[in-house]
């Protein structure tokens, strides 16, 4: 089998069709989490899963398009975080390709890395748009506490976003890891680098 680089932009039709599915899963995850009143967003399951399945380009596109679509349909504020979502997709895709989803311990580490990176990317955006706050109760409470202790704003802002992003992304990555492991082989092979659908 001829393999292409994971960074190829020439997406197969199956990989392209995965993008809207991923965005749909993001939305469903968010809806169910809200419906069950879970204290997490779980709104990036689709992006993470599609990155594991089809690599960083599909993952990154899913992330960016996801937030742009929310921006033009339901919630303009989410457009601001398109970059964060894109980076999550790229990071998960690249690391999954390198074997970071082979076992539970590695997936755990992947979750922590993704959470930390998501917070790092969001912090400058939060600083530009809302002086470092996030609009999350727990995060903003921590932000206020650090400012009241005369901590620097950037630190307050980073902690504000990591305190929400880290648990959320960690759980999301682990959930996706379990789902990914449970997928039948022919589904996984559909998106991998060969252009052919499947060998009969």
């Amino acid at each position, binding site marked *: 089998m001829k393999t292409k680089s994971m960074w190829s932009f020439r*997406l*197969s*039709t*199956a990989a*392209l*069709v*995965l*993008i*809207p*599915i991923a*965005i*749909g*899963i993001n*939305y*469903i995850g968010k*809806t*169910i*989490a809200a*419906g*069950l*009143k*879970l*204290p997490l967003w*779980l709104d990036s*399951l689709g992006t993470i*899963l599609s990155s594991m*399945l089809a690599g960083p380009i599909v993952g990154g*596109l899913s992330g960016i*398009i996801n937030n742009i*679509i929310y*921006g*033009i*349909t*339901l*919630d*303009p*504020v989410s*457009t601001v975080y398109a970059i964060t979502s894109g980076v999550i997709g790229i990071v998960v895709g690249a690391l999954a390709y390198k074997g970071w989803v082979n076992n539970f311990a590695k997936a755990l580490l992947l979750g922590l890395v993704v959470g930390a990176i998501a917070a790092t990317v969001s912090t400058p955006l939060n600083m*530009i*748009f*809302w*002086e470092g*706050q*996030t*609009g999350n*109760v727990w995060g*903003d409470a921590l*932000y*206020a506490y650090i*400012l*009241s202790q*005369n901590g620097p*704003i950037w630190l307050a802002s980073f902690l504000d976003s990591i305190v929400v992003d880290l648990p959320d992304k960690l759980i999301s990555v682990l*959930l996706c890891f*379990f*789902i990914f492991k449970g*997928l039948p082989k022919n*589904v996984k092979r*559909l998106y991998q680098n060969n252009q052919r*659908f499947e060998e009969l």
Partner: protein
Amino acid sequence: MTLYVKQDSLIHEIDPITKVIYAFVAALLPYILPSHTVALIVLVISIMLLVVGKVFRKIIPLIGLSLFLIVSLVIIQGIFRPDNVTPLFHFGPIIFYKEGLSYGLLLMLRVINLLCAFGVLILTTKPDDLIQSFIQKGMSPRIGYVIGSVLQLIPQMSATIATIKDAQRSRGLETEGSLLVRIKAFLPLIGPVIMNSLISTRERSIALEVRGFNAKQKKTFLHEVHTYKYAKVIQAVLILIFIFAILWRIFL
């Protein structure tokens, strides 16, 4: 899945690209020029456009979505902002400062302005028209397909969720109760939807390829997008204002 309101108005007539440019320019202006006056002027213009577009009432739930952020900005900046010196008033032991409140107010105006500016676009533009305009401007039709199909898929998947929720409950799945019970319910609810939709990608991609999705020929459009007479003029003015604002910020 859209907030688009079908109306007959001047704003609905304007082409999508012009409204996209407006949304970005209007949303970013108060960030480029950090003054209350600029934010207020742009906000008033956006609100006027919303009123002319007969969609003003629909902007309120959109702002409601970010209400916590808006309130939290004013309160936290008012109490904790590092350069606070002049106390303005206090609730018991909590002191609100003039500098922080003033800055919090600016942040609040910026957020509401961003929501209203995008509201002008979102509430008066059909997503399909928006996608088609971008494809005509040179965006890949493949990306256009991706965006268009999301808008169809999400209502479908939401309907599936309702079915699966009933099915799993009839098998004894508990979806209410302690946090642990609710956490346990998450995977059985989302798992089948994910499996279903991943498996359906195979059929979707076969269906697309059979219909010439990857054909290299130039694509034509089913619907004609009406052109707007003053599109070029308005776009030019908006971009000029944007450039002028940046120059103003840098040199003055």
